[in-house]
């Protein structure tokens, strides 16, 4: 049992005093490769510690795999429209086969962050699906997972399709085919533009961050090769010169190791957060699509109701015996319309709150990432300078 430090509060409010407050803390650990060949997958241990009354006990451990996390994400996306559901790491069918230690670790970290974000979100943490995810035994989870996959699974492609539908409807409007179904809210427009452009900028930054990781690795490799070559050269020479070369070579190899370490650090603490930021923005886009949907539904229902009203009046005038039916239909429609309006307005309200939370969260996240980056680079530079500096006196001895 990992000793669990007294907690990290379960919500995004200011830090509270530990024991009396409700908390929910989760960790995703212990990745294990199971299965063979194409069927291979990684399973994780998910440990929950909580004092929420709805939960079965103070602590629970379950085994989950990536598709379970996807199930959770999909359920939350369905139920909590308007909230930016935390993003998941990519499925990545190709890398999965290689299952490199680094890939596994990156995924584990991302999944851990995912669950914890849900657990710290005021609304999401109340979700029943979350409780199921954290507590259900493995067989039940498997049943749920395979059952839900067909119906609710929304691949990012699907979301984009929905969004494209909305956009195509807009162009239909321009061509005069339909009535406008886009909100005419200038602030919201601004937000949408912001989100789209932000994604582009972030993607570029992330691309360079990734390249920087690669550069560190390449430089490390170069230093190692160079060190070896210097050592061999030293072996050709004799005495002091030979010694000088082998010292140089040894230092070079030491630095190579430092660089490889830093490359890894950079990947985990700088590039990954940037990727995460990109994913988060994509999640927002999905919510934007949902809002557009809800808006359209609301409009369509409003339209339909108007038509029905006219129809009803007509029927009443002609004293048709269809009036009763029509009245019932009309009432149902009215109810549906109200519901649609409610849904839409909830989404709008939630989104407004979410945006504030998102911006604040991101500022903190990126602040940490930048800090780690700077620290790592400074440490590396210092290390390199120290190494070369310590070489100088040795070389001086050789040359005198």
């Amino acid at each position, binding site marked *: 049992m*990992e*000793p669990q*430090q007294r907690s*990290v509060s379960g919500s*995004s409010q200011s*830090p509270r005093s530990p024991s009396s407050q409700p908390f929910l*803390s989760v960790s995703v*650990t*212990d*990745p*294990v*490769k199971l299965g063979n060949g194409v069927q291979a997958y990684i399973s994780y241990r998910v*440990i929950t510690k909580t004092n929420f009354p709805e939960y079965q006990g103070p602590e629970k451990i379950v085994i989950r795999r990536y598709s379970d996390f996807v199930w959770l994400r999909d359920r939350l996306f369905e139920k909590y429209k308007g909230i930016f559901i935390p993003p998941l790491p990519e499925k990545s069918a190709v890398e999965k086969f290689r299952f490199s*230690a680094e890939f596994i*670790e990156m995924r584990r970290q991302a999944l*851990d962050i995912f669950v914890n974000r849900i*657990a*710290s979100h005021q609304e999401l943490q109340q979700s029943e699906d979350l409780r199921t995810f954290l507590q259900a035994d493995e067989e039940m989870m498997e049943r749920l997972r395979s059952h839900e996959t067909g119906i609710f699974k929304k691949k990012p492609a699907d979301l984009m399709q929905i969004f494209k539908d909305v956009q195509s409807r807009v162009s239909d409007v321009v061509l005069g085919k339909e009535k406008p179904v886009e909100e005419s809210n200038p602030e919201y427009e601004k*937000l949408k*533009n*912001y989100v789209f*452009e*932000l994604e582009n*900028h972030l993607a570029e*930054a992330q691309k*360079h961050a990734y*390249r*920087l990781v690669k*550069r*560190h690795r390449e*430089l490390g490799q*170069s*230093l190692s*090769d*160079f060190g070896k*070559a*210097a050592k*061999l*050269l030293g072996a*050709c*020479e*004799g*005495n*002091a010169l030979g010694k000088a070369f082998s010292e140089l070579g040894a230092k070079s190899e030491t630095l190579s190791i430092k660089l490889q370490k830093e490359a890894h650090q950079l990947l985990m603490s700088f590039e990954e957060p940037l990727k995460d930021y990109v994913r988060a923005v994509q999640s927002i886009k999905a919510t934007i699509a949902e809002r557009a949907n809800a808006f359209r539904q609301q409009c369509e229902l409003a339209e339909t109701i108007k038509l029905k009203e006219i129809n009803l009046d007509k029927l009443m005038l002609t004293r048709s015996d269809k009036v009763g039916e029509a009245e019932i239909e009309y009432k149902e429609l009215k109810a549906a319309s109200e519901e649609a309006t409610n849904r839409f307005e909830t989404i709008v309200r939630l989104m407004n709150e979410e945006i*504030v939370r998102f911006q*604040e*969260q991101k500022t*903190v996240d990126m*602040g940490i990432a*930048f800090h780690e*980056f*700077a*620290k790592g680079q*400074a440490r590396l530079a210092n290390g390199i300078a120290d190494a070369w*500096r310590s070489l*100088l006196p040795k*070389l001086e001895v*050789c*040359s*005198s």
Partner: protein
Amino acid sequence: MMGSENQGFEEAHLYASKEEMENLVLDEPLNDNKSHSNYRSALSSLADTHHPLSPPVAATPADSDPLLAPPSYSDFGNPSIHDNSYLDPPSYADVTFSPFDGDTGNDINGIESPSKSSDNSGSLSRSPSSSSEYIKITVSNPQKEQETSNSLVPGGNTYVTYLITTRTNIPEFGASEFSVRRRFRDIVTLSDRLAESYRGYFVPPRPDKNVVESQVMQKQEFVEQRRVALEKYLRRLADHPVIRKSDELKVFLQVQGKLPLPTSTDVASRMLDGAAKLPKQLFGESAVAPHEIVQPAKGGRDLLRLFKELRQSMANDWGGSKPPVVEEDKEFLERKEKMHELEQQLSNASQQAESLVKAQQDMGETMGELGLAFIKLTKFENEEAMFNSQRVRAADMKGLATAAVKASRFYRELNAQTVKHLDTFHEYLGLMLSVNGAFSDRSSALLTVQTLISELDSLHSRAEKLESASSKIFGGDKSRIHKLEELKETIRVTEDAKNVAIREYERIKGLMLDDDGI
């Protein structure tokens, strides 16, 4: 499932400890609770100045944590004997390599060949001899000139000349400063003449002709590259204690006007030469003129001699009997082996140095690009900001971006220095070429000796046969006697040639024994 712990983690120490991972809940940064509330208070006070996320992190103990005050880098450098703040670009140049300082150009000619252990080896210091004499050569001022004589294309055929300025206090030159204009072809001539006259010495190799590059590269870049190479080459010649006093070099540096054209440079005329000689060689006047013996068999001109020497070398390799004169100097062979090994390692080190330089360059570039991407992001966030948190974030990004761009500049600087110093490997490789040249001079001289000796043997035995044949016929066979006469004449000439060849070989051998070919 238990072994899985290791399976998932290649090197446990590379990853954050498990404990840290479990404690990672997003609203609390890894090491510090303070920063969170700092951040909050910063937000509420609407300040977007000094970034709140500057917790004292315990990670590097010796740090006076300069990260606490991001902009001021001056607390960084630990003062040490050798360096000043290595973050100041100008002083970086003085920082390292003082023990090895000294014009690398002068050191390459290796008064001490690098592998000789009896020297104060490892010293790249200047040669102790001739301390007061100097020759300083500069190559500058490339200019286009027109080929005046018969060119097929009217107005065509331009070439570049370089101004070669010499300053010297060596009396033989007769002046202390003078200049001439030379073109690349003249350098080739000079180099060929030197190779002839200084066979067996470590003659520095001349710059490549680079025919392909001259077509492909930008004219200016190519000319500049060539100018640098020429300067390096001439300086090396000037540093060579024997060559610097040579007539060829003197003429090259001083005599105004065009240099005499080299004798038949092109292959075609050489082949013609050779073809013309061949009948003569085949039909009796087979002796090679003694004075030409001193030179290695040149392709095309001395076809027959080449054939003979080739045959001899095959006999050396495959024949059962030992050749008459053999390379017996074990020390020489050992040294040759060592040189070969050294050359390989130098080549390898040189290659790795190149990759290292490239890797550093890439690093600097990518760092710069990262910085730029963040600057764009900063601008974007500032323009579109609807929340204060965005402005805070934008300020963070700006800090990062600026630092990244600065770092990128430093990498560029670092690389410039690295190139300068690691270039020494390349220079030494060039030296290896001249060493190889000297070695092959010796081998070819030896081969010539061996060939001549075998030839003499066969001539003698032919003469014997002729004599015994004609002695049986009373009064002599006129034609046979005539042949005998000719043969004896040939033998005499060949004998002379052999002596010359042996002398040449011994001379070269002597050069090697004594200061390694200087």
